Every structure is written in structure tokens, then in C-alpha cells.
């Protein structure tokens, strides 16, 4: 063990040495700073921070009117005030709950139908043609109809999100199962697997990469749908908050709402990636060093 550690240290030492003993002063310093930048991941932040600074300067000097595009500073103030008053946390909570409920219902049904169509020819013949046709309808076109059916309450928004999420998850589950290597299925049957064991050990893991693609795509659609639904009708949620702020010309709150969607979307995508990385550790694309 000690030998291995020594070996590792020996392998690590050359870069350190070269950093400390630069061949020429200027060149050596460049290497050092490049190492620091790489270590801290500074590069990623350079452009956004620069943009914010320019934006703030333009607002402060009055070149960009505050009413059209408020400064980053006033967005931060709005964030702080709305958080303290409790409005913001409540709206974020309401929106997240809607998104999650719609995703669970639409995704669950999409998965179930995709599974049935993937595994059984009968199920495929029964409903795949119909679903492929419905898939082509932009689900947001249903809004007038949904308002007639459900009014503008919770169920309308959840329903719309569920419809939007259903199709990508349905299609990718179905497709994932159908494209499993037939040779693996043949081998598994020879090994005596059937029924639930065959599904759980071969079919489901084989289809999982495709299912995850569908799920991540569905997450994007989930946000999009929710924003539209909340903006058109509602009395709570982030979309409502921004529309309400527009009435009072509080552009900074509108901007805050948009940034919130971006932040929440990014968070959820990061979570999805994390799950993907864990569940698909065997997959060459997700191989960990």
C-alpha cells in the first residue's frame, strides 16, 4: 500500500515541480495562473459576471431606462423584499408542486403506456397509432378546451403539464424497449429468465438510457407548459407573480420571475443528470474515471 502511495505521489510531482521552477519567469507565471483558473473553474463565470457589470453600469448611467430593463441591483432588491414578505417562497412552492404533480401523472402514464406498447404487440396495435397521431398536436393548442373543461383552477394546469410530459416519456420508453438487442433477450431466455425477472434484469435496464432521455426532455416541456399556463390564467405561482407585476409596471419582478424559471430549470436538470449518472454508470457515455 505504502509503495502504491509513493508511486502516486511520484506521478503527481512533475507538474508541481515545473510550477515552482519556471524555465523563464513570465512563462512560469502564466502556467501558475492557468492552473489556478482551471482549479477554481473561473472561466465559466467570466462572461456572466462581465455581462452583469456592463448591464449595471448601463442602467446606472441612464443609457438603458429602468422601466424597460431594470438593473441587476433592483432585481436583487425585489428578490430580497419578496422573499421577506413570504410571497416568493409561496409562489415558488405552488409552481413546483404543480410541476411535480403534472410530471408524476403524465410521466407515470407515459411510462406505463410505453411499457405496454413496447412489450406487447397487441397493446402496440391497439393504441400506438392513435398516440402517434395525438403526439403531433401541440399540447398548448388544448388551452381553450382545457379552460372550458377545468376552468382556470389547479387541475387545468396540472392536466396541461401531464399532457405535455406524457408523449416524450411514452415514446422514448416504447422506443427504448423495442431497440433492445434481440441477441441479449435470446441469451436471457436461454439462461432461464422469463416474466418479471426478464423485465427487471434485461428489458428495463436495456431501455433505461432511452427512458432517461424522455424524462429529461419531459422536464423541459414541464417548465415550458407551466409558465404558459400560469401566465394565461391563475392567482398564484411564478407565472402569476410576473403577470401581476407587469400590471404595476414592476419590471424588476418580471425579470426576477424569468431568472427563477432559469434557476429552477437548471437545478432540476442537474438533479436529473445526477440520477442518470448513477443509474447508467455501466454506460460508456457515463463512465466515471
Amino acid at each position, binding site marked *: 500500500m505504502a509503495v502504491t502511495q509513493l508511486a502516486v505521489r511520484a506521478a503527481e510531482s512533475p507538474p508541481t515541480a515545473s510550477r515552482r521552477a519556471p524555465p523563464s519567469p513570465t512563462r512560469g507565471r502564466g502556467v501558475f495562473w492557468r492552473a489556478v483558473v482551471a482549479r477554481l473553474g473561473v472561466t465559466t463565470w467570466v462572461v456572466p459576471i462581465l455581462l452583469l457589470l456592463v448591464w449595471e453600469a448601463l442602467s446606472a448611467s441612464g443609457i438603458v431606462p429602468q422601466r424597460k430593463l431594470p438593473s441587476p441591483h433592483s432585481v436583487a432588491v425585489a428578490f430580497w423584499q419578496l422573499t421577506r414578505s413570504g410571497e416568493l417562497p409561496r409562489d415558488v412552492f405552488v409552481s413546483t408542486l404543480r410541476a411535480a404533480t403534472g410530471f408524476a401523472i403524465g410521466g407515470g402514464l407515459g411510462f406505463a403506456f410505453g411499457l405496454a406498447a413496447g412489450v406487447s404487440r397487441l397493446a402496440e396495435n391497439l393504441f400506438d397509432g392513435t398516440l402517434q397521431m395525438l403526439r403531433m398536436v401541440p399540447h398548448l393548442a388544448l388551452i381553450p378546451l382545457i379552460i372550458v373543461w377545468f376552468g382556470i383552477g389547479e387541475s387545468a394546469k396540472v392536466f396541461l403539464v401531464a399532457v405535455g410530459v406524457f408523449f416524450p416519456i411514452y415514446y422514448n420508453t416504447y422506443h427504448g424497449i423495442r431497440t433492445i*438487442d434481440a*441477441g*441479449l433477450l*435470446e*441469451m*436471457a431466455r*436461454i*439462461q*432461464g*429468465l422469463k416474466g418479471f425477472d426478464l423485465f427487471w*434484469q*434485461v428489458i428495463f*435496464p*436495456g431501455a*433505461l438510457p432511452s427512458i432517461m432521455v424522455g424524462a429529461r426532455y419531459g422536464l423541459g416541456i414541464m417548465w415550458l407548459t407551466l409558465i404558459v399556463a400560469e401566465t394565461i390564467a391563475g392567482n398564484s405561482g411564478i407565472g402569476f407573480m410576473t403577470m401581476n407585476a407587469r400590471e404595476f409596471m414592476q419590471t424588476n419582478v418580471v425579470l426576477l420571475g424569468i431568472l427563477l424559471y432559469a434557476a429552477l430549470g437548471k437545478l432540476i436538470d442537474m438533479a436529473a443528470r445526477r440520477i442518470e449518472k448513477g443509474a*447508467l*454508470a*455501466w*454506460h*460508456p457515455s457515463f*463512465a466515471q474515471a
Partner: protein
Amino acid sequence: MASLVRTGVTFFDRSMETAPLRPVSSAGLPVRLQKVAKFYGSRNVLRDIDLTIEPGQFVVIIGRSGSGKSTLLRLLAGLETADAGDVNLGEDASPGRLRVMFQDGRLLPWRRVIDNVALGLPKAERGRAEAALQAVGLADRAHEWPRVLSGGQKQRVALARALAANPRLILLDEPLGALDALTRLDMQGLIEDLWRQSGFTAVLVTHDVAEAALLADRILLIEDGGIALDLRVDLPRPRRAGPAVAEIEAQILDRLLGGGRRAA
């Protein structure tokens, strides 16, 4: 070759704590085909095959591509059904009676090596998977993903998986076709060793004449869907390339090339 089998034994001997590879009662499965025929559309791939294989025999099926040799193996595996005639594998109908080793390995990429070997085994018999992996010399790779293994190692895992349930018949469908020459020699030795230890009936499909002469008790040459040559090989084992083996090879090649010339 014995040394090859033992490469899997590392710091401690796992075979002490796991089930033995072969219960004493294990014996090869008898195989009996009567008037078997198979069609793909209007093409008659196999015609009137009559074949009896004694339990424990090592049979090598050889032939040109498209001769129907793989179809014959798939019929034995139950992956195809005969359009006429009867395929009889004796009384034993247990799920573990036969296993197949495929040319392309067919390991599940989402299961670790050991879990691939244990595929289809009841939980209580997992020890057998460890013993089988030990027998092919890969005990130390048990917890790797299949994708990090070399082609030869993957085929060893596939062999271990075929062995783990202690089957009475193992069907090998060109299992070494994609390997380099040296690895192929290693694997031939390994397969022969394990076959001699376990006593299963072995049916190996190949297009490699040297492989047939090295491994077979009996060589069946398939041509145009029928058995064109049924040759018994009574040479002592383990065999090495030499005049006796070369003579067998020449005999098969003559028949193969002669048949080809006639067909052309």
C-alpha cells in the same frame, strides 16, 4: 493448460468456500434428432437430419457459411423449431439442462461480471457463479463492468456463465471466431479442460478445421443442409498440432474443398 485454469487463484482460494462446480451425479445429456428438416421461406436449410449424440461426447459441427450448421445448433437450443421430424434431448426438462455460448458473448453491459455469470441462477446458488468465474481464471475481475474487458476475457465470462448452472449440454456457436489466434488457442484448451472436468455433452459449431481436429470426439461436416461426413476422432487428449491431427484436418479439408468444387 492446467496452469491457465489456475490463474484466477489469487491471494486466497475461494473455491474452498463456494459450491463445487460439478455435483457427482452430473452427466451429459443425450441428443437425438430424427428426420429433422427446417425451412426459411421456401429454402430448405436442413433436410432429413438423423443424428444421435452420446452423453458426454464432444461433437464439432463444421461447414461453410450458409451450410445450415448454426441452424442445427439453434434447433438443439430450442431457439428454432423444426418444421419436420423430432428433436429429443431426453427426459430432463429442467431449465438448467442446457446453455449456449454465442460468438458475440452477449454479456449484459449493465451488470457486473459476476452478476452476468450469475444470470438466471437462484440466489442461493450464487456461489456457483463465483466458482465458474474462478474456473475460467477471472475471479479477480468479478466486480468490473463488461466493457472494460478484452474480447478474450468477455468470452471467458460468457463461458463461465454457460457453466455456472452446471448444464448437461453446452452448445457453442462459433465462440472463438472473433478472437486472435493466441487467445483462441488458450480458450480451446480451457474449454477442453472444463469439458473433461464436468462431463457435459458439448456441441461446437466452427468453420476452423484445426479447432475441430483439436477438440472433437466426432466431427460432423454439414453441406447443403445435410450431414456430408461423420468422422470419429480417437486421438489422445490433450492434443497438439502434429501428424495425426494434421491428417484429420486434411481429411476434412479434402471433403470441404471437393464439395465446394463440385458445387461450383
